[in-house]
């Protein structure tokens, strides 16, 4: 097995493209090393992308946050400005593994590992984040929800890397939140995850919303009906019930060691409601 740690995207994408599918990107490594140890993957080449400066940036650019795909979870959590702007995304990042794991794990890795239960992904989707992608054919952008296509599978072409995430401008009186359900308080994989991002007008009426669910389908879901249930409401009980019903209706979960279809579906509705309420509270606070 070869190890390369290029300093530019051009070299990295060329290395990946040239390996004919036998290469893996090494970001935080918290998923890749486990897969290597378990003989699930045996790459000929690992390309460590942490020396590529562009992927390590977390900064505001003209009202938009740009989050490098190789920024670690702990770095995200420690960034005061980003915490203030996108607390829901930070909610998701905070739930990835332990402090130790977040010391290495990256948001780009969390997305590209393509686990349906990845904690940062519903929050990124709800936030409307866009993935900026570089590949042998140049650069392109895609909404985050279009990256993972199923467990362990992505829409990235051979040689393509997610470089960074670009966040929309934060609307006034808007807020976001991500909640997940796990049997333990920490060190667990989401049985259900729910991300909600919404904006309110001066009278507390919801003017825009995005709702995303994790771990209830082969990939994180955008639930437009759930968002519609919120828009125009003041998050009163009836609206929350509609939100919850829409969230449950969108679920296409599996029965596995982490949860049953019935349980996941039921709790998806509960978490969507609770996340919406926290997001609204954050929006009110400004």
């Amino acid at each position: 097995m070869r190890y390369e740690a290029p300093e530019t995207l051009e070299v990295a994408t060329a290395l990946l493209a040239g390996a004919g599918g036998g290469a893996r990107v090494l970001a935080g490594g918290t998923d890749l090393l486990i897969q290597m140890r378990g003989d699930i993957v045996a790459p000929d080449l690992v390309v460590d992308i942490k020396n590529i400066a562009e992927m390590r940036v977390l900064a505001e650019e003209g009202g938009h946050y740009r989050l490098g795909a190789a920024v670690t979870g702990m770095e995200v959590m420690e960034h005061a400005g980003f915490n203030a702007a996108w607390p829901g995304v930070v909610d998701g990042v905070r739930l990835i593994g332990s402090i130790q794991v977040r010391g290495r794990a990256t948001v780009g890795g969390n997305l590209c590992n393509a686990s349906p239960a990845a904690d940062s992904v519903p929050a990124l989707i709800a936030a409307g984040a866009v993935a900026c992608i570089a590949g042998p054919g140049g650069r392109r952008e895609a909404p985050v929800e279009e990256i993972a296509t199923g467990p362990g599978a992505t829409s990235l072409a051979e040689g393509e890397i997610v470089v960074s995430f670009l966040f929309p401008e934060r609307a006034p009186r808007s807020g976001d939140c991500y909640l997940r359900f796990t049997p333990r308080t920490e060190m667990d994989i989401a049985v259900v995850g729910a991300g909600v991002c919404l904006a309110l007008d001066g009278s507390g009426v919801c003017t825009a919303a995005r709702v995303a669910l994790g771990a209830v389908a082969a990939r994180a879901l955008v639930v437009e009906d759930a968002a519609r249930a919120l828009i125009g409401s003041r998050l009163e009980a009836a609206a929350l019930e509609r939100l919850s019903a829409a969230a449950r209706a969108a679920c296409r979960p599996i029965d596995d060691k982490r949860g049953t279809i019935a349980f996941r579906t039921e709790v998806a509705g509960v978490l969507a409601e609770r996340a919406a309420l926290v997001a609204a509270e954050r929006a009110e606070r400004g």
Partner: protein
Amino acid sequence: MATMLKYEDRDLKVVGTRPIRPDGVDKVTGRARYGADINLPGHLYGRVLRSPHAHARLISIDCSAALALPGVKAVVTRDDFPEMPVEYAAAGELIVNFRDVTRNMMAREKVFYDGHPVAAVAATSDAVARKAVRLIEVVYAPLPHVIDVVEAMREDAPLLHEDQITAGVEPPPETPSNVAKRVRFAKGDVAAGFAQADLVIEREFDTKPVHQGYIEPQASIASYTEDGQVELWTATQGHFVIRAQCAKLLRMDISKIRVTPTELGGGFGGKNNVYLEPLAIMLSRKSNRPVKMVMSREDVFRATGPTSGAHTRIRIGCTRDGRITAAEAQLDFQAGAFAGSSVPMASMCVFTRYDIDNVEVVGNDVTVNRPKVAAYRAPGAPIAVFGVESILDEMAREFDIDPIEIRLRNAAKEGTKTYYGPVLGPIGYEATLEKARSHPHMKAPLGPNQGRGIATGFWFNIGNETTASLNVNEDGTATLMMGTVDVAGGSRAAMAMMVAEELGVAAEKVRVLVGDTSSLGFNFVTAGSRGTFASGMASVIAARQAIDKLRERAARIWEVPVDGVLWEGGHARPASSNVGEFEPMSIGDIARVAGKTGGPIAGHAEINAQGAGPGFGTHIVDVEVDTRTGLVKVIRYTVVQDTGKAIHPAYVEGQFQGGAVQGIGWALNEEYIYDKDGRLQNPGFLDYRVPVASDVPFIDTEIVEVPNPNHPYGVRGIGEVPIIPPMAAISNAIHDAVGIRLREQPMSPPKVLEALRAREAGL
């Protein structure tokens, strides 16, 4: 021990204080050497090939490709180990049969569970060993499997052992079954007892296997020399028993095997058995190199002892004033692939907290296609007690009796004759209940969806073969060699303290080491909460022997009869003014001149420690239930337990707290999950959910001290009782909080939510 001075009459200087444990500095600096930390010059790396099938005939094993891989030095399979006849031996709290031990260590005719060893490889690197394991070609003929205990007891169930006739049934059944053994304990007339009852409640309970979850995976390193001697370092709770088993399995003389126990990274009953040791020795023999073997976490979960999963049926009758008139239990325990679950002990302790005239308990030991179970902290008791304590809670509510009061009305006490035989001596059960009743926790207010539960536990505790050797050094310090492994609870600290108390020196002046199998006589496994009790007794005897010699030497120096010399406060003193006027001599004064007065001074003990004191505890727990997700959070917890005398109270508290948290994990989230093919789905700490720090509150502790009269310092075993009550206590607390009665473990969110929905639907 009748001649010993009662400690209660003495002014204790060391016992009952909280000195720094002697193994502590090594453990906080990374110096302590655990199983995987031992290396030998030129050692090879061993790996095990394990069955992916739950049940299959083992048709053939072809190791040629593995042996051809550069760096591979040896491979072992079933062909390298002799057949073993049926022969039983004690190994910790469970009994083993050598015919099965050899088959569990390395499959012979069949594989019986996912993870069952089929071959092992030794190679120059771990990477090569792992690669070699994948090159071994095994042909299996898969068979139908069964992992559920109720299904395994059905007549048409897939049969694991074609020649297994249920033992303990008269006349013996004519056809084989998965029921390996039936035990029965009875007293009085249960039918008559139930007839006297105003209320009879019968319920069924289900529990899944849970794992001890020690953080250190099993690890061993063995060196077999050309003259047939073996040196083995291994992470075990009982190096003498490991030695005996290796000698038997490999047909060697016991004297040829020297086993050194490494620092132990947790055991909880799960490190009483051989797994890697015979394989490492045989690989070393075949390769002529030392061989090191360390399990992966996945190996640990797939192939080492969980405790039994079980189905239990409990029936209790009581009068309107809460007196139990009869109790009946059927306990069906999974043994795993081979006979020998903890069901006999579970059967004996299921009702022993209570003085009941009419009792009948039947226990079934049932083989299923899972790893062979191992002991886990009070083996079987939490499973059995769950149902009893749950039903008592129901009865207390039915008659509006306080849950502690109903237990007090039936509590076992000194003189109670147990239904399995012995009469109980002085015990502290009632004292723990009274202490719990007056604890501020019982009066603390509860919020919405919060509830409180209590439950109690009993464990026998044991003594057994134990040795100790104490050397008084030239400067008056002492070195104690003990033979029971310090399994974490701080027994080296406790030994140092008891010996220091006897000698009249500071605990820091006594260095305690765990001896290897060549340095002391046989010691039984550290199990059954026996370490502080039995090794304590042996250490005190050794110290008193040394003190007698110190007195003799002083008498010789003073030229007085030995009866004229007392040992007091670390000094030899004239027993009275009649003896003469002599300056007291310290232990150092005497030791420094020992060469001139008869040679070095030492004391020894080789005993079979008798008179272990039974342990009882009462737990109080508060939970909060999220009624929309089924999540149960433990918000307050109190452990009250009788310790006899607490030698080092901080480590007594540590046992209470650790046992309670293991019990919380057991109650709420821990379980073995299998797929339809009998493959374990959660062999890792991510999905086998042991509690993390943020899952649990502080665990309050109350030490009750009712001395065990059979021990020089009143010690009872304490390590096991704390894991018994939590499951029942939490179930009772959930009921108190939201009105649902959970009889299936784990009480995980999906089950809680389902029960809540069923209640809402009026089911």
